[in-house]
């Protein structure tokens, strides 16, 4: 703290920024408290294990087995990541390290536009174009593969843009040192650039996964919406988010409370994700003080 009195403007700015931060943080807490409050009714009435062990999802008959839908959310998210992560990281690498400046600028603009497309548009495209393609006309293509592809398209820009930003923050000296040692572009990317940018890349992946877990509308239109364990690429499934969207409009009392339990599960999943990411993405981006201080 400076020994001099801080000018009024600086103090005012501190206050404004502190209030904004407090407001944002309190919103998260309030939402969590609200969701938990609404879910408490069902948790008390049914007990937590009912949601894990009930045979099927028949809310009007008192059966609340959430596991198949949780598995469906997991499956579609993983499927999307498997497709989008390599493509996204590759696109980021291309833009940051290989592409000439004008090409990189244009490519980045395209990716940013892709990021801005509303999810329901992806859903519509998926239903009208992708699903018949996957089904081949004979059977319905609504299912795991369609949902994963649509999700992958939505999270691809996030991964690409954050990978590119993270790579740009890698100090030039590291890359020059790698070049001086005779490393070609592939080895440099694999051994120097990506490890140095690890934190940013993982942050991008966490953001993308969070979005994939929470995506509702597009998945609802192409996933088939049958409550069942993920059985195959073309078999239908229903995600937790899709279920909430389908049933919230008319659910009363206990049913509504059960849907909030599903919402709680989703929030906890994302929280777990963030914790895992901070554990594994631990190494800070290398500073320019000549040393990859790799503390695991």
């Amino acid at each position, binding site marked *: 703290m400076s020994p001099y009195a801080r000018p009024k403007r600086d103090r005012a700015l501190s206050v404004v920024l502190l209030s904004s931060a407090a407001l944002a943080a309190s919103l998260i807490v309030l939402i969590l408290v609200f969701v938990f409050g609404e879910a408490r009714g069902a948790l008390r009435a049914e007990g937590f294990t009912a949601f894990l062990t009930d045979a099927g999802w*028949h809310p*009007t008959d008192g059966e609340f087995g959430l596991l198949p839908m949780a598995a469906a959310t997991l499956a579609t998210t993983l499927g999307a990541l498997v497709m989008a992560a390599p493509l996204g990281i590759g696109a980021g690498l291309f833009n940051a390290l290989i592409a000439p400046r004008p090409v990189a600028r244009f490519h980045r*603009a395209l990716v940013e536009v892709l990021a801005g497309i509303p999810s329901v548009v992806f859903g519509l495209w998926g239903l009208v174009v992708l*699903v018949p393609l996957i089904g081949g006309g004979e*059977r*319905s*293509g609504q299912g795991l593969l369609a949902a994963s592809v649509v999700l992958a398209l939505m999270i691809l820009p996030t991964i690409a843009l954050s990978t590119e930003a993270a790579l740009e923050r890698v100090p030039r000296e590291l890359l020059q040192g790698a070049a001086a040692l005779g490393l070609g572009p592939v080895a440099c990317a694999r051994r120097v650039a990506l490890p140095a940018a690890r934190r940013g890349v993982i942050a991008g992946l966490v953001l993308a996964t969070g979005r994939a877990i929470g995506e509702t509308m597009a998945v609802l239109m192409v996933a088939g919406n049958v409550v069942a364990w993920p059985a195959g690429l073309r078999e239908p499934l229903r995600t937790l988010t899709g279920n909430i969207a389908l*049933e919230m*409009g*008319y659910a009363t009392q206990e049913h509504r409370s059960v849907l909030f339990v599903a919402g709680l599960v989703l929030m906890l999943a994302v929280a777990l994700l963030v914790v895992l990411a901070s554990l594994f993405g631990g190494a800070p981006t290398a500073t320019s003080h000549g040393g990859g201080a790799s503390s695991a």
Partner: protein
Amino acid sequence: MSTPSHLACLLLLASTAISACGGDAAAGRTETLILTGSSTVAPLATELGVRFEEQNPTIRVDVQSGGSSRGIADARSGHAQIGMASRALKASESDLAAETIARDGVGLIVHASNPLTSLDAEAVRGIYTGKITDWSELGGTPGRITVVNKAEGRATLAVFLEHFGLESRDVHADVIAGENEQAIKTIAGTTSSIGYVSIGTAEIDIEAGIEIKLLALDGVPATTAAVADGSYPMARPLNLVTFGDRTDWAQRFIDFAHDPKNADLILRESFVPISKP
């Protein structure tokens, strides 16, 4: 930030957006009438709403779908002044008042290339409970049947289950659709599929060239005419549902729907008008 490439993308999107813009003098519309519920009734309510707005410059009619159960829940909670339901009210809904403005049927639809023209009740039960799995068992071209069912909370599902004496958990579906149009698009894209939707909605889409066709049920063709003369077995009323005291605008809208002068809108949606002159 790269200005030229961003500008190019933006101009491309803007030109497509501007061409899709319509115009609506929203100024001066101070009051709103909200209807929510059945996706079968929603297009009809929208058309009625447009003409209602033309004749009443101060009101704005807002129609949202979401299923008949949502319409009933919203009418009770007050979120909507009128709920739309494509079925008769149940005994547990005796606290609500229903005004029938049209009649409609629930028809079975298959892809246009399917050679079958009729199904009987036993066949439908067998298909939907998973006992009949291939079209060849019914005399059609061999292929695994893709069963399209409607989501819970939809009146079309309730009418279907009641007519065939099935429970929701008995049905083994391959795809669950929310809105009528989602079911229709799914069936138009899959040659081996079967589903059920509002006959009015299906007739309109068939006329528009969508590749589906309606099957006769127990020998009775699934047409609006058959619903009108009462011969089609799986018929249901299209209701506007209110809770408690009706607002002035709600009553006027319901009277407007009953007016024989507006029966042409109902006929245009391929429903059977119920007029109270």
